[in-house]
């Protein structure tokens, strides 16, 4: 899509000259750099509970954020009204951060290279509601039919279509149309006398609605949620203390997101407040570990044609054979650290200042057969499903919550294990990775990452991995 075809030009009548004028206004008090971020987002959500479609909502939000950078300072203002006088007012507010003679600049706006990672002709948001509502109804029926012990099912389908325009004082002009859809299912199971147990599954990405009809159907997610709930009915209490942990493939890649990903975001490292600060080139993981953040994988939830500062996304190697290789950069950190862009500047919306963020973070496949990995463990824990995670950037300590695990006893999976938090230290934990499977899998597209109050969609992935020592926080 070109600027002239974007909603901002076509519907709101914004011209290149307008953009240049606004940038001029933003830099009217001086400053090194300015950018404009226009966003027009349509969202919808449909929810089923007790086999009734109880909620359906749709909405529109739009606005423009104006940023001015002067040295290490950032001025930011936004408007949810795209009228020229409102945008100029925001530009003037943001301009106050700078206090130097204005430099005369001409912003020769040019549309640069960008990917075409989600060539979706009709975004799910643009399809008929009658089609989308079927997804939650099918999920509800399938989860209930899976097993008679399932007694509650909730499913939520949500999508959005975000159209963005970024114009910078360096002359970059980027437009993008970013579809996103997700289906989530949660099921509760109970058997005679016992307490209920919950299972959860979901997924999606930047694809058209066909994806839910042909590839990952509502039945797929419903069965997965129901299976987990049923599996947990016979689960025993989690153990406590240090032990060997094997992570299953896919979503358990959240380990990487928490243990290393956040700690490698350049803002923390520029300020020297990350446990990874000053460790570039050092060994921070076993040599079996190569960790990549890749925003260029087609149709993935964490992928973007351009980041929220208008830079094309990239494949960035963070850790190569155990050695720390790179940070994730946004515009500000690139300038201050004199580093190359990694296409990692992201923001939740026009009302937010961009920061370095992850896209799709995963570990490259190794050579071990996953079954052989489990056979190699005399006593340990095999974790296949997780809830959320969190990290303390400065100490490097991270946690993530295993919602479905199994004991490994004499190389075999035995009893299911209930909720347990796993805790470790970022620069240390991956040194204990002793086997990496050949079965790299990306998650199904359900992750949302929070940082300093801003949420963005992300992906993770990992092959089956054996960690010789990690603390498991159970009660037994």
């Amino acid at each position, binding site marked *: 899509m070109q600027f002239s075809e974007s909603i901002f030009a076509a519907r709101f009548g914004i011209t290149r000259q307008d953009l240049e004028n606004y940038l001029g206004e933003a830099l009217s008090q001086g400053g090194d750099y300015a950018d404009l971020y226009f966003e027009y987002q349509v969202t919808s959500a449909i929810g089923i509970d007790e086999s009734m479609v109880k909620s359906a909502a749709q909405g*529109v939000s739009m606005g423009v954020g104006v940023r001015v950078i002067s040295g290490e300072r950032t001025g930011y203002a936004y408007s949810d009204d795209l009228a020229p006088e409102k945008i100029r007012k925001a530009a003037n507010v943001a301009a106050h951060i700078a206090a130097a003679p204005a430099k005369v600049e001409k912003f020769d706006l040019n549309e640069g290279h960008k990917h075409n990672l989600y060539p979706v002709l009709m975004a799910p948001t643009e399809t008929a509601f009658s089609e989308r509502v079927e997804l939650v109804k099918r999920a509800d029926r399938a989860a209930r039919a899976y097993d008679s012990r399932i007694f509650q099912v909730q499913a939520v389908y949500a999508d959005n279509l975000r159209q963005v325009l970024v114009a910078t004082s360096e002359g970059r002009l980027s437009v993008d149309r970013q579809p996103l859809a997700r289906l989530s299912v949660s099921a509760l199971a109970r058997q005679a006398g016992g307490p209920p147990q919950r299972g959860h599954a979901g997924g999606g990405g930047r694809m058209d609605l066909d994806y839910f009809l042909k590839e990952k159907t509502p039945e797929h997610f419903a069965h997965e949620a129901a299976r987990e709930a049923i599996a947990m009915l016979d689960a025993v209490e989690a153990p406590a203390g240090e032990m060997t942990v094997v992570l299953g493939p896919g979503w358990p890649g959240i380990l990487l997101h928490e243990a290393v990903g956040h700690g490698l975001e350049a803002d923390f490292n520029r300020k020297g407040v990350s446990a990874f600060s000053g460790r570039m080139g050092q060994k921070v993981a076993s040599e079996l570990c190569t960790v990549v953040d890749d925003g260029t994988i087609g149709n993935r939830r964490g992928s973007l044609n351009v980041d929220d500062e208008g830079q094309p996304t990239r494949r960035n190697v963070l850790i190569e054979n155990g050695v720390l290789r790179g940070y994730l950069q946004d515009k500000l950190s690139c300038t201050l650290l004199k580093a190359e862009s990694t296409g990692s500047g992201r923001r939740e919306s026009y009302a937010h200042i961009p920061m370095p963020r992850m896209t799709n973070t995963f570990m490259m496949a190794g050579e071990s057969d996953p079954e052989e990995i489990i056979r190699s463990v005399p006593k340990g824990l095999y974790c296949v499903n997780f809830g959320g995670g969190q990290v303390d950037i400065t100490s490097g300590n991270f946690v993530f919550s295993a919602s479905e695990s199994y004991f490994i006893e004499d190389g075999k999976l035995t009893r299911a294990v209930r909720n347990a938090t796993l805790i470790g230290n970022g620069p240390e934990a991956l040194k204990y990775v002793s086997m990496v499977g050949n079965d790299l899998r990306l998650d199904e597209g359900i992750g949302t990452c929070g940082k300093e109050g801003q949420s963005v969609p992300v992906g993770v992935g990992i092959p089956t991995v054996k960690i010789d020592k990690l603390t498991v926080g159970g009660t037994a």
Partner: protein
Amino acid sequence: MSANHLSELAQDIVKRALAAGASDAECTIAEGEEFSANVRMRELENLKEAGSRGAGLRILIGRHTGASYTSDLSDDGVAHLVKSAIELADITTEDPHAGLPDPDEFGTLEGDLGMYSDEVAELDTAFKIETAKRAEEAALSSDPRISNSEGASFDNHVGRHIFANSRGFAGEYRSSYCTLSTSPVARDGESMERDYWYTLARGFSGLEAAEHVGRMAARRALRRLNAVKVETQKVPVVFEPRTARSLLDNIFEAVHGMNVYREESFLAGKLGEKVASDGVTVIDDGTLPGLFGTSPFDDEGVASRRTVVIERGVLKSYLMNTYAARKLGMKTTSNASRGLTGNAGIGHGNFFLEKGVQTPEQIIAAIPNGFYVTELMGFGVNVVTGDYSRGAAGLWIRNGELAFAVSEVTIAGNLNDMLRGIEAIGSDLEFRGSVAAPTIKMGEMTVGGK
């Protein structure tokens, strides 16, 4: 837009929805202005200032619902808003429990609830930046081991909230707050730790002094240095007020009416039963002037009130909106909560644990070997089963004193047992937000470490 204009707009949107075929409608309009200044290492880093507003609509056609929102309050924007909500009623299911509150339930608290202070909007930018700098400086200069900082920030917000429905309810209120926080980094050899402190008030005069905020943050970061991982063991665990508050969050989820009717809570079906130890009384009160969970009416137009949730260990009430109350055969407790749109969810007013008699020092002094938790991490609480397992950091209690820093451990138990196992509650109840708890001592939990 003036207050009158927005209130008229909300009522107009309701009328337009009825004209378009809705049998009932509810409209929320929110307008706000935000300001944020961040300083780091004594220099201004970010300055952000903006205003925004939006409208949300929920309609019923019979017992079918639909909802929409927009940030475009132009005539076209409103027309689209109405059309969007109406068309969704086609795809929702007839739900016998859907609907607005009963007519006799609408109401609003009278009098000044202390939610708004004129002084917030009038604060000078330079003064706010200076205040943040003073907080950071107090942290940086308090100890040579405070060598770095994630900065300090001063934020404020003023807003207006309007709600109108087709049963004749129309209400609005203004609110304001300002907050000052700082997050210093302490370093000693290889050990690096960060912590923070903050103060929050409806008006500037309610804030703690900037120097106090800085010194508290520094003290907290310093005491975390050179933390060790302890052996796995079962010991008494003391939650300081900041972490105790998260237990109140867990209790809130468990008495949340939606979770209760779905049996998605370990407290479902336990009304009238003993669920916690004798000293535990938990209150939800949306009427306390000046506090953050206070409002004249909830997001369905029902007057805010005080609800005793747990009284001396006995579960007395769930927290409900109209929908959850109808599902449970009860009455709303005025806990409806929503953003701009959608069916009302459930929120709390000021949700707190009543204070006990012992000081935190007395509680700690009685413990020969235990864990004082100052930080919790992660999401390992399952409100369905009560299973509790979270990452933790804090200080080890040895012979009644805080002896050394501990990190990279977990604490685990089950909320059913934990609530019954509360052995002491501190006298140090303080509101720093809408959820509050004093120091809490649990008889025994599993600490997972080496």
